[in-house]
Structure formats: structure tokens, C-alpha cells
């Protein structure tokens, strides 16, 4: 499908644009959950209602300035492999890969703003920005929400706010998250303490790019847990304040590591760089770990010939469906390990690639 092809031609802007604290923060994401009043929620709606809801949302979105020039992707016409590409690019959830009937995605070409239609809620307005930028990301999604208010009749209660299919999102329907890279805290073994502290203030920490509790590549996603009783602005400010504190700890941890174990740290970083430039087989997990080490090297000024945006793009490209698209064929896992290693060598300008 040509829409997917267009998206694949260049990396998403949130990966390549400059952002505050971007050596530790990859991106910030904001989503608002909204539903149409009195209509059955997605999981209970009959197919014909679902497509009605989808079409209504589509025409409402078409009239907004925020989504001017956006691309409409009908999931019914999108094969599974393309839906996987969209999921790997964080544009849709794996839920939408699986349940795609009468679902849709509306996305602006830079991929910073998008709307999932008929996921768990009728609308999931999403905004992603590079670096520590959750306020900006919230402002954008808030503007789109304002534009839609009136065009669509959102389900709302004066007592409990915006009504969502799951009670964990009711109220603001707002989820704000920052994707942070914390190798310093992991190496110093302080990470568990930080995670426990964040949980204590009702924030959620997840390892990203890995399922469940596996903190692959030292990337973590920190997000708000509660949506009821706190305003949107306070939710965003609160999360930002805590993330800034975590970044302070990460900076300190990096300095301690440099002070006390400089040679060890440099050795680890240069070895990782060497493997990425020469390996012939790389699993996703191994590649993630190595990219993480190189990213730390770039952040500390040890490695200077690799740019952060390139490392960000690699995190997306080494995923299974993106690799298969890059090499235009379907591959078994072992073949993908080979392709992943080839891609990394080419990307890092290794002599033989």
C-alpha cells in the first residue's frame, strides 16, 4: 500500500528532530481517550455501528486544522504486514493489528500527530514530540481535542469527566509518558530504587521495546497512572517534575561511573560499537543492548561520529517487519538476524558493508 510506503521512506520526525535532554529522553507521548456519547464502546458495538462511528470521526477530523494534510489509513484495506509496520512505528497498538475491522488510523506525514479510531475507545488522540517535551505534546493534542469538541459529541459526565471503556482512563482520558534512557542508573544498580519511588507517587514504569518486565536496552517508559481527580495541566507538570528528577539522578550516575570506572565504561562502549560495526548476526535484544551502550557513548562525548537521531531511527528499523520491508522479502528469524547485522554495518559505515 502506497501510504505505508510513503511513511517508510523517511524516519518519523519525532525520532530525528532536536529535543531538550535528548541524550536521555527519546520522546514524549500524550494521548487523550474520547468516546461518542451514548454509542456502544468499540468492544460491544456491532460491525455496522463501528463503521458508522469510524466514518463520523473521519469527517470530523477532515475539518480540523490540526490534522490538515493527514493521511487516512483504513485498517480493513491494510494487510497484516502493513499493520505490523504501523505498530512498530508506534502509530497503532498491537490490539489494532489483531482487531482491525472498521478500525482506522489518521496520521500526519511527520507522524507527530495521529488518531486511532475504534481502538479500546472510539478515539485515541496521540501526539509525540522528541526529547523532554510533554507540555508541547499536550498542547497539540489539546488543540485537536478543542477542534473536535462540537463536531463530535463526546461522552462526558460532570462528576467523573470523559467516559472511557476502561475505568482506568476515566476523567481526563489522558496518558502522558516519557521514554527515557537510563544506562547509568542500571549499571549503578540504582534503577530498582528509582522505579519503586516512582510507583510510590503513582507513576507507572515499564521497560520499552520489550514485553513485560524485561528492561531491554535500558529504555524505560514513565507515565501517569491516575486520570481522575487531577487536571491535565497538573498531570503533565507532575510527570515532568518527576522525570526531571530521574534525569538528575541519571546524570549523577553517569558522572560517578566516569569518575570511578572510566576505563571499564569506555571499554564497554567501544566494544559495543565494534560489535555493531562487524557482527554478522544480531538478535533484536542484542542489538538493543549494543545501541544502548553506543547511545551512552554519544551522550558522554566518547563517541562523536554517530548522531543520536540515527541511533533513534535504528531502534525502529531493527524490528522484524521494518527489516523485512527494507529488504523487500519475508524472512525467518535467523535470516532477520543476518539482515539486522547487515543493516547496522551499512548504517554505521563499516568498510565492508
Amino acid at each position: 500500500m502506497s501510504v505505508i510506503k510513503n511513511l517508510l521512506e523517511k524516519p518519523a520526525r519525532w525520532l530525528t528532530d532536536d529535543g531538550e535532554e535528548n541524550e536521555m529522553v527519546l520522546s514524549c507521548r500524550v494521548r487523550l481517550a474520547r468516546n461518542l456519547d451514548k454509542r456502544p464502546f468499540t468492544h460491544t458495538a456491532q460491525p455496522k455501528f463501528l463503521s458508522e462511528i469510524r466514518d463520523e470521526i473521519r469527517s470530523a477530523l477532515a475539518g480540523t486544522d490540526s490534522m490538515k494534510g493527514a493521511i487516512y489509513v483504513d485498517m480493513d484495506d491494510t494487510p497484516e504486514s502493513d499493520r505490523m509496520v504501523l505498530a512498530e512505528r508506534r502509530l497503532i497498538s498491537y490490539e489494532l493489528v489483531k482487531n482491525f475491522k472498521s478500525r482506522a488510523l489518521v496520521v500526519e506525514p511527520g507522524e507527530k500527530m495521529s488518531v486511532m479510531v475504534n481502538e479500546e475507545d472510539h478515539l485515541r488522540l496521540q501526539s509525540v514530540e522528541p526529547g523532554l517535551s510533554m507540555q508541547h505534546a499536550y498542547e497539540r493534542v489539546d488543540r485537536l481535542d478543542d477542534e473536535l469538541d462540537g463536531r463530535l459529541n463526546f461522552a462526558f459526565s460532570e462528576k467523573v469527566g470523559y467516559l472511557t471503556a476502561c475505568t482506568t482512563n476515566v476523567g481526563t482520558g489522558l496518558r502522558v509518558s516519557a521514554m527515557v534512557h537510563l544506562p547509568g542508573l542500571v549499571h549503578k544498580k540504582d534503577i530498582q530504587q528509582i522505579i519503586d519511588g516512582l510507583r510510590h507517587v503513582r507513576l507507572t514504569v515499564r521497560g520499552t521495546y520489550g514485553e513485560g518486565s524485561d528492561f531491554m536496552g535500558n529504555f524505560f517508559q514513565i507515565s501517569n497512572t491516575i486520570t481522575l481527580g487531577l487536571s491535565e495541566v497538573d498531570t503533565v507538570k507532575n510527570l515532568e517534575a518527576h522525570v526531571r528528577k530521574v534525569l538528575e539522578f541519571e546524570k549523577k550516575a553517569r558522572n560517578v561511573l566516569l569518575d570511578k570506572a572510566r576505563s571499564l565504561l569506555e571499554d564497554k562502549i567501544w566494544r559495543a560499537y565494534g560489535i555493531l560495526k562487524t557482527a554478522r548476526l544480531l538478535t533484536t535484544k542484542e542489538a538493543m543492548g549494543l545501541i544502548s551502550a553506543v547511545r551512552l557513548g554519544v551522550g558522554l562525548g566518547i563517541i562523536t561520529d554517530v548522531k543520536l537521531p540515527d541511533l533513534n531511527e535504528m531502534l525502529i528499523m531493527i524490528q522484524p517487519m521494518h527489516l523485512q520491508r527494507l529488504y523487500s522479502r519475508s524472512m525467518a528469524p535467523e535470516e532477520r538476524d543476518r539482515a539486522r547485522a547487515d543493516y547496522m554495518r551499512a548504517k554505521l559505515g563499516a568498510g565492508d558493508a
Partner: protein
Amino acid sequence: MLCQVCKKREATIHFTNVVDSKVEKIHICPQCAEEKGFDYLKKSNFAMGDLVAGLLDSALSDAEADEGKGRCPNCHRSYDSFKKIGRLGCSNCYDFFQEQLIPLLSSIHGNTRHRGKVPKRFRDRVNADRRVLELEEELSRTIACEKYERAAELRDEIKRLRNDTEGGDTVCQ
């Protein structure tokens, strides 16, 4: 075997659903199956569990039609089905199951009142409500420090705001 929905025609479609390791069997005739959207089930890989649970609910709702309670009048879902799948049927469920939901919301969020954004059509009303809440808090503080003159002012202001917001609905004021 008779169809468990209409209880008239012969059931020719038999379906087994497993929820939380409990096995539930559905026997249904083709007409009712079509009415309930069951034929769609066979053709797609839609979230089967969800839809079947919904089908069970609507089948049951026919049987329980006389009772007519315990189900959201808008989407005909029961609180039990919410407990099973963790998602409510429609926005009206929040109103209908309010009593059960409030303690749940309190345990999830530590709060039961929305303090965030409000859609345009609710804005005036909610702002007035929020103002009343603020004034009521101030009122109890003023009474605590025995500033009765101020308390009287606040009471009047609260009364005025209450009348404003309820004006549209109440006949006698």
C-alpha cells in the same frame, strides 16, 4: 434442542465459550444468530470472547426481560459482564452502575471527582458547580474561625449559584 434465545425454533448452531476456565455452551437457531450478529462471528477473527460474552448477555437479557433490572438500558450490559471483561458497554453504564463504580474508581484513582477539562456544552454548568464546591470549603473554614458575617455572605453566594445552575430544570424556586 430449542434455541435458547427465542425458545421456539430448533437450535442448529452450537458454540462453546470459555471464560476464566468456565465453560459455557450456546445453542442458537440461525435466525436468532443473524439477529444477534452471530454469523459475523464465524467470518471474522474479531475478539471472539468479547462478542460471545456480549451474545450471552443479550440472550440472557431476553430471558430476564421481565425483570429488566441490573442492565444498562442503553447497551443492555450487566455489571457482571463488566467484571468479566474489564470494560464497560457504553458511556451510559457510568450513570447506571454509579453505585458499584464509585468505590472502584476511588480505589483506582484515589479520587471520584473529575477536575480536568470540560467539553463546551458542559462548561458553564461545571464551572458553577466547581465554584460552589470551593465556596463550600471556604464556608466551613470561616465557620470554624467564627467569622459569621463572611459565612452569611458565602451562604448567599452559594444559594445564588445553585439556583442559577438548577434554574433550567426546576419549576419552583
